[in-house]
């Protein structure tokens, strides 16, 4: 049987790839996909622990997370479309009307 640490490591790596992508990528949609990747890495962690502890609630949490991610996707893409209509760009560096 594959030890539980492999799954945890895989989800940690996926999460790290998501964080890394957000830091280096400049396209809004790609950044958004990286966020989804982070959430799915967390889902994998939930399922792993649910299986490891023989509990069901971890599996149920995944559904909550998926529902929230779907709602976030709807709103997020709406915001990106609204911004694209006004600015004709998907590059986050060009969203600089207000300086950091």
């Amino acid at each position: 049987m594959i030890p539980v640490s492999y799954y945890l490591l895989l989800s940690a790596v996926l999460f790290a790839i998501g964080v890394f992508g957000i830091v280096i990528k400049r396209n809004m949609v790609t950044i958004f996909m990286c966020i989804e990747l982070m959430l799915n890495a967390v889902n994998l962690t939930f399922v792993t622990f649910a299986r490891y502890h023989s509990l069901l609630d971890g599996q149920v949490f995944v559904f909550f997370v998926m529902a929230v991610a779907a709602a976030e996707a709807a709103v997020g893409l709406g915001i990106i479309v609204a911004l694209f209509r006004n600015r004709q760009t998907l590059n986050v560096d060009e969203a600089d009307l207000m300086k950091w």
Partner: protein
Amino acid sequence: MPENIAFEIQQILPDVILCFFGVFILLAGPFVGKAKQSSLGILGLAGIVAASLATANLVGNDGTYFTGMIIVDHFSIFFRFTFLLISGLTILSSLDYLRRQNINLSEYHSLILFATVGMNLMAASNELIMVFLGLETLSISSYILLGVKRTDPKSNESALKYFLLGSFSSAFLLYGIALAYGATKTTNLELIAKHILSGSADMRLVYIAMGLMFVGFGFKVATAPFHVWTPDVYEGAPTPVTAFMSVGPKAAGFAIFFRVFLVAFPTTYEKWLVLAWASAVLTMTLGNVVAIVQNNIKRMLAYSSIAHAGYILVAFVSGRDDGVAAVLFYTLAMNIGAFTIVALISRENEQKISIDDYAGIGFKQPLLASSLSLFLLSLAGIPLTAGFAGKFFIFRAAIESHFIWLAVVGVINSVVSVYYYLRIIVIMYMKELPEDYVPVSISPGVAVVLWLATFGILQLGIYPDFVISLARVSVLNHH
């Protein structure tokens, strides 16, 4: 057992009422003419009043409900009232603003109600998944609220920045929740504490989980170094939404921050205290120092709210939650008054938000200028105002817990902050009024907000016993 379910639903009745009104406003929106959109705001206010009555009904029902997911205690009830007050003031101050800016969206009012539901559920959650769901209900509503001026690129940008950083931080929080679940086999806050005490939890995982949650909450409440989004988001948002964002989500974030760390990790959170200490010092100093050089009043108030998050962290570090932080939230709620005036002075399309636009209005608009001065003096913590009471209790708590240096840094910061608050008052009263100045009229809704905020500030400043005794019973029950 049906009667049991009815009894449990009673414990979240305020949220049920708010959801009902929110959905009803959404449905009624298309049938109400553009000129009558403000009647939907009145409907929203009615929902908030009804929810307040239902909240008052919760007093005395202490306990956990829905298999331990929802908790009713003084802490959650105090915060529920604070949130309802904040949302009520926001809707009142928005009525006039939305009409002047020509934003005829019924969604606006229902989103405020949905955001309030999210905040309420955060304060009442006794379970990490519930924390996440409450937080997301609040966040998703506020993403839309920030971008409600769809044709304004600044509003788009503000929504985009908050959306990207908000969901980024939610992922951190969620990863922390997953690891805490893995380490302790549960997401119930009290059971987590039990597992940690009994030594059956994997402590390495617990520490990583706490670190990730610290980052997640840090983003939500905008403590340094996770504060970078705040000024941009606050500047671009419609001003009443900025007012809402600077107090509502912040108070909700801190409420849940306190509850998670004090209830679930009471014995282990000392490990993180040094981090919280550093973050408090950094947050206060950065907020106040950068606020000095701001020329945009919304950005200045954004940095001032970052500094206030630092003061609340001082209360967290002191670990003496005898309601000290609660007092500060109450004073922060009065921040809405300041933003209401900013919204009023900014005119159409928010042209006038530079500090110089306040030159000379002191004698031209006496009511606006004097109440803005009072709000700023309260933020600075001048005696006889609410801000003084709030800061006094926090620094006293820090000294009593032997965090002398933290209190010293806090007081120095407080002195620094007087400079930029007073600067606006000086500009209002000592500079020449531009010749082409057109006075702004005060609508009834705005007048009510200003009077309520003025009353709140003076009442807590001059006679604080009432609010403080309320805050004292709202102490979080932890071990």
